[in-house]
């Protein structure tokens, strides 16, 4: 009886489908609706903001025109106050497709430049933060003398030091990736250190005492107990750190003559009043931020996949 045999399977698929449908209705649908509303608001905003400029510059002053003409011209201006979404999307797409990867007109070229310094800074900053947090946990002097300053630095706009770092490294003869990576590094360093000190201290007294009864050395206790216990604290800090590092790398690209990188692309766009270029660069930096953070989240899921959720 082939039909009867297949029947349960059909029900299963139906069940799975309806489950997915309810899941979409409760989680995906609201997000889609909000995004659509934002898109509509964007179009309305483009029309509203660009209309005065379009009436002044594009529409014929001697001949009559209808509101349809106005609508079309506001959404296809060359230097609009707010470019319409499709204009940004077209510019974004053409920058990816029409130019080779090595051309500064290709956005991916700038992404590569910015991502390189962000990742270097992220790696170095994380390594430095890990090292220092291990030292702080094992030294009472460092804990009481240095840690308060590192915690306090979280309330201070440390990004403001970026121009100083650029000047110092520039006068020492460093240029290119190094200064940007250093800025991204110190921005990553602070959150990682603070979170790791907290994480390395998170094992309970019973667990540390057990390590002690095993006659475990400090290194073994660190490797077998403290580091694994600190991982859930580390990853949120890494997500914060890589986002901060990206901002740092982009800011570091501003005063260096704006040659390459997403920050430079933003700045040249605003110099020449090329709004569509600014918006494409903005969308690209948002995508890069999302990609970097989801990269960290992916590593987190791989590393912590065997942990039960608390």
């Amino acid at each position, binding site marked *: 009886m082939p039909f009867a045999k297949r029947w349960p399977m059909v029900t299963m698929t139906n069940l799975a489908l309806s489950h997915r449908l309810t899941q979409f209705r409760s989680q995906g649908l609201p997000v889609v609706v909000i995004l659509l509303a934002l898109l509509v608001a964007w179009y309305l905003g483009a029309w509203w903001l660009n209309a005065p400029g379009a009436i002044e510059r594009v529409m014929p002053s001697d001949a009559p025109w209808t509101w349809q003409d106005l609508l079309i011209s506001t959404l296809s201006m060359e230097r609009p106050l707010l470019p319409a979404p499709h204009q940004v999307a077209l510019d974004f797409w053409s920058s990816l497709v029409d130019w080779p990867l090595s051309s500064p007109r290709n956005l991916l070229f700038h992404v590569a430049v910015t991502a390189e310094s962000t990742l270097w800074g992220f790696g170095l900053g994380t390594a430095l933060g890990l090292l220092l947090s291990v030292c702080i946990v094992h030294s009472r002097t460092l804990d*009481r003398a240095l840690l308060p300053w590192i915690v306090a630095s979280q309330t201070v706009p440390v990004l*403001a030091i970026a121009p100083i770092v650029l000047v*110092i490294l520039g006068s020492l003869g460093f240029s290119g990736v190094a200064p940007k990576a250093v800025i991204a590094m110190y921005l990553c360093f602070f959150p990682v250190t603070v979170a790791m000190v907290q994480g390395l201290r998170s094992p309970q007294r019973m667990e540390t005492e057990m390590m002690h009864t095993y006659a475990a050395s400090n290194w073994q206790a660190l490797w077998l107990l403290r580091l694994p216990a600190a991982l859930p604290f580390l990853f949120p800090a890494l997500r914060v750190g890589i*986002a901060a590092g990206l901002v740092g790398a982009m800011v570091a690209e501003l005063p260096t003559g704006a040659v390459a990188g997403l920050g430079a692309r933003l*700045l040249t*766009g605003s110099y020449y009043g090329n709004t569509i270029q600014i918006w494409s660069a903005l969308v690209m930096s948002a995508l890069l931020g999302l990609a970097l953070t989801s990269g960290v989240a992916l590593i987190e899921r791989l590393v912590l996949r065997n942990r039960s959720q608390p």
Partner: protein
Amino acid sequence: MKRTVKFSLVFALACLLGGVALMQMPAATAAAPPTPWFWLATTVLGLLAVQSIRWVAALDGPRIYGLLTAALFGLWVVYFWQLLVVAFEVPRVLLPPPALIVQSMATHGPTLWGDFVQTVLKAVLVGWALGSGLGFAVAVAIDRLPFLQRGLLPIASLTSTIPLVAVAPIAVMWFGFDWPSKAAVVVLMTFFPMLVSTLAGLKASGKLERELMYSYAASYTRTLLALRLPAALPFMFGALKVNATLALIGGIVAEFFGSPTTGLGFRISTEASRMNMPLVWGAIVVAAVTGSVMYAVLVQLERRAAFWHPSVRED
């Protein structure tokens, strides 16, 4: 040797006095080239200073000892910064000595005050208040609309990964070069953390308390005012504190993208390109002190407002 509290503190004080004495040597003020005696004295003082910090750090007792250790460490770092930068004749571009920074802050006092007014009092405070207020208002408004909450929350959480400060050039185009464009950037940066935290806070009241309010036949507004908003206070203060730092960063960095000829960010970027590093450091000191003061004020406010919360109550 058994060290007493008094011994450690007196030793630390004696080291500081030794530091003052060393400052009187001609090499410390660049009046004469450093002699071997100067180097010997500096090395000995360095070792003594490290030892004094270690002993003060080892003290058990009230919290003030911890703060004392940090203060002592900071003092010695600034001291050796001054001493070594002068003795080694490090170029000012690389690292100006602290005394020069203070001097530069004093001579450029009115300029820095103008920058402070422009960036902090106008752009940052207005943007911070508007952004946090809007985030709070939207969160309360959509409290009864779970559909909108489920739609907005994932988007709002994602914005923390996006370099929002990059909208600065667009803000300049829309609101001009002056402070409103910077305030707009700050509004955008502070809106989402406040929205997310307030939404989380409104869900933080316990089921028991909510059912108690229900059994009192308390209306929605009454429950909101008497239970749910007070329960959300620690979350909101957390966001306000994060936002204070974010707002300062936003206000300063937005000025890197273009600004009128005043403002902390403008001062930092232009004076850095003119290699006037003492003034750049001075502007950074102003920004750092502002950030710490804003944070401290918010902590005090939180202690007043959320006095019942365990994190405030424990001591």
